[in-house]
C-alpha cells in the first residue's frame, strides 16, 4: 500500500487534490446513502416515513416498526433457517475445499490435471443453466422444500477448491518432506503439518460462503415453497408484497435486521472477504 502511495503521489492529476477528494466523498455518500436512509426510516413512524426532505435523525425515534416485523413475520424462524443454511454450507465448503485443494496441491495421483480442469470449468457454468435438472434430482430425493436441499448441493465449491489449492501451493514444500523423512505418512503430514497452517485460507472460503449464501435468493425461491422453510431474503420480499402494500418502516426494519450479520462479517472479516474477492474474480 505504501508503495502505491509513493507511486501515485507522483502522478499529477488534472483535478486539484481537494476536488478529487470531494468527488470521492460525494460518491461515498451516494453509495452509503440508501443504507443510512434505510436505517433511519426504519426508526420513524409510518406517518413520517415518506417525509421529504428525509430526516436522517428521526424527530421521534420509535421501535414500533421492529415490533411490527416480529408481528408479521416469524423472524426467529427465518433467522434460524438462514443461520442453519449459511453456517452448514460455510463449514461444508471449508471441509470439501480444504481437502480437495490439498489433494490438488500436494498429492500425486492419476488424472490430476483433467480432474482439476473439470473443477475449473464448472466455475464458468451459471447456476441458472443447471437449475431445472438440479431441481428434478432434488425432487427425486424428496429434498425439495427442505433446508437440506439448499445445503447439500452447495457443498462442492470450484472456486473454494481453486483458492485452497493456491493456498497450499504457497506453503513451503520442505515442511512436508521433513515430516515424511521423520516417518509421517501422507495423512499425518496433512493432519499435523499443513492443516494447522490452512486457517487463514479457510477463513476466506468461509467468509465468502457466508456472504453469498446469507444473501442468496434464487435457489431458496425455487426450492422452498412452504413459508416455514423460508430464509430471511424470501421473508423480506414477501413482507413488501407484490403491490408494495407492506408498511415502509416495517419492511425496512426487516431489511435492517437481516443486514446485521452481513455487516458484522464485513466489519470482522473485511480482509479475508476482500482477499477472496480480488484473488480471482468470484462468480457470485
Amino acid at each position, binding site marked *: 500500500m505504501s508503495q502505491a502511495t509513493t507511486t501515485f503521489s507522483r502522478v499529477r492529476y488534472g483535478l486539484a*487534490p481537494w476536488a478529487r477528494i470531494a468527488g470521492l466523498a460525494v460518491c461515498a455518500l451516494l453509495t452509503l446513502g*440508501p443504507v443510512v436512509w434505510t436505517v433511519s426510516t426504519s426508526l420513524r413512524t409510518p406517518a413520517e416515513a415518506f417525509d*421529504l426532505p428525509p430526516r436522517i435523525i428521526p424527530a421521534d425515534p420509535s421501535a414500533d416498526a421492529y415490533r411490527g416485523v416480529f408481528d408479521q413475520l416469524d423472524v426467529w424462524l427465518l433467522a434460524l433457517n438462514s443461520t442453519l443454511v449459511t453456517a452448514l454450507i460455510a463449514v461444508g465448503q471449508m471441509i470439501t475445499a480444504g481437502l480437495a485443494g490439498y*489433494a490438488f496441491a500436494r498429492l500425486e495421483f492419476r488424472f490430476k490435471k483433467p*480432474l482439476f480442469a473439470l473443477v475449473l470449468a464448472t466455475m464458468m457454468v451459471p447456476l441458472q443453466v443447471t437449475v431445472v435438472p438440479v431441481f428434478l434430482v432434488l425432487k427425486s430425493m424428496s429434498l425439495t422444500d427442505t433446508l437440506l436441499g439448499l445445503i447439500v448441493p452447495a457443498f462442492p465449491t470450484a472456486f473454494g477448491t481453486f483458492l485452497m489449492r493456491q493456498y497450499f501451493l504457497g506453503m513451503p514444500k520442505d515442511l512436508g518432506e521433513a515430516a515424511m523423512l521423520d516417518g509421517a505418512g501422507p495423512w499425518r503430514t496433512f493432519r499435523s503439518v499443513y492443516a494447522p497452517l490452512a486457517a487463514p485460507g479457510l477463513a476466506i472460503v468461509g467468509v465468502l460462503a457466508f456472504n453469498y449464501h446469507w444473501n442468496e435468493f434464487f435457489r431458496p425461491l425455487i426450492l422452498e415453497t412452504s413459508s416455514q422453510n423460508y430464509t430471511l431474503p424470501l421473508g423480506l420480499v414477501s413482507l413488501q408484497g407484490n403491490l408494495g402494500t407492506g408498511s415502509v418502516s416495517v419492511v425496512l426494519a426487516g431489511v435492517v435486521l437481516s443486514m446485521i450479520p452481513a455487516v458484522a462479517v464485513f466489519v470482522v472479516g473485511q480482509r479475508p472477504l476482500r482477499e477472496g474477492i480480488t484473488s480471482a474474480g468470484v462468480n457470485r
Partner: protein
Amino acid sequence: MTDTQVPDTQVPAARPRSAAPPAAVPPPPARDRGTRLLATLFLAPTIVGIVVFTVLPIVGSVVLSLFRWDVIDSPSFAGAANYGEVFGDETVLVSFRNTLVFMVFAVALQLLIALTLALAVNGRMPVWLRSVFRSAFFFPLVLSAASISVVMKYLFNQDFGVVNWLLGLVGIAPVPWLTSENAAMATVVLVYVWQQFGFSFLLFVGGLNNIPKEIHEAASLDGATGLRKHLSVTLPLLSPTLLVASVVGIINALQVFEQPYVLTNGGPGDSTRTVVMVIYETAFEQLRFGEASAVGVLLFVLIMAVTALQFRLSRRFVHYQ
C-alpha cells in the same frame, strides 16, 4: 496407516513375474498407495458433488430441452420443437434483447465508475481516508441483492421517492423510474451497478498496486502527465485486470435476476424481463421444463460465445508485463 500397507507392497515383489520385465514397473512404495488412497478420499466430496450437481445437470439440460414435459404427464420426445417454440416466442426473444442491452450498459457503467474511483482513491490522501473510501465502495457487496432492491423500490418511487425529490431540488421533473418502459431498464441498471461496482473497484485497486513505480517515474521523465499518462501508461498496464473485470462482469450481468424480479417483476410490459426471469417463470410457474431447459441451454451458449469473443479480442488489447 503405513504399517498396514507394508505387507501389501511386498506381495507383488515376491510373486514371480513371467510376462513383464521385472524392472519395467517397480511396485509402488507403501507411501504412494497411501497417497493415492488419501487423494481419493479428499477429492471424493468435491468431484462427486460437481458431477451430480453440475456436470450431469448440464447433460440433463440438453436432454430435457429435447423433450416436452410438465412433470404431471410422462415426458415425450419433441426433437427441436422446444427450440422452435422458444425462437417463435416474442417474450423469450425480448428477454434476450433486454439481457444484452442490460449487460452492455451495466458492465460499461460498472467498469467506468470503478476505474475512475480506483484511480482517484490511489491519488495522494491520508491513509485513513483512503481506507474509509475503500470500505464504503465495497460495502454494498455484502448486502443481499433482493433486500437492496426492496429498499430501492421505495427510493425510486415516482411520487414520494427520495431520488425524484433530489432531482426536484435541481429543477428536474419527476421521472417515472419504475413505471415507464424506457426508464425501468435504466433503473434496473442503476440499482445493479450501485451494488456491483465495488467488485470491479477492488480488482482495479489491486491491479493498480501491482504496477511497478519505475514505469510511472519513467513516464514522468518523458514528460507524460495527467490524463495523457493514464491513457498511454496506466491503462495498458491495467489491461489484464480490465479483462478479468469485464469477463466476470459480463458473466454476472447475463444472469441478472433479483433486481428486475423485485423492482419491476419484468414490467412494465416485458421491458425489464431478463432471460433468467423467463427460465424461472417457464419452469417453476408454468411447469414447462423442456422449454425452460432450452432457454437455459441458449443462455449457456450465449455466455460461452461472449466469453470466447472477449478472449479473442483481448489478444489485441491486453498487455502482459
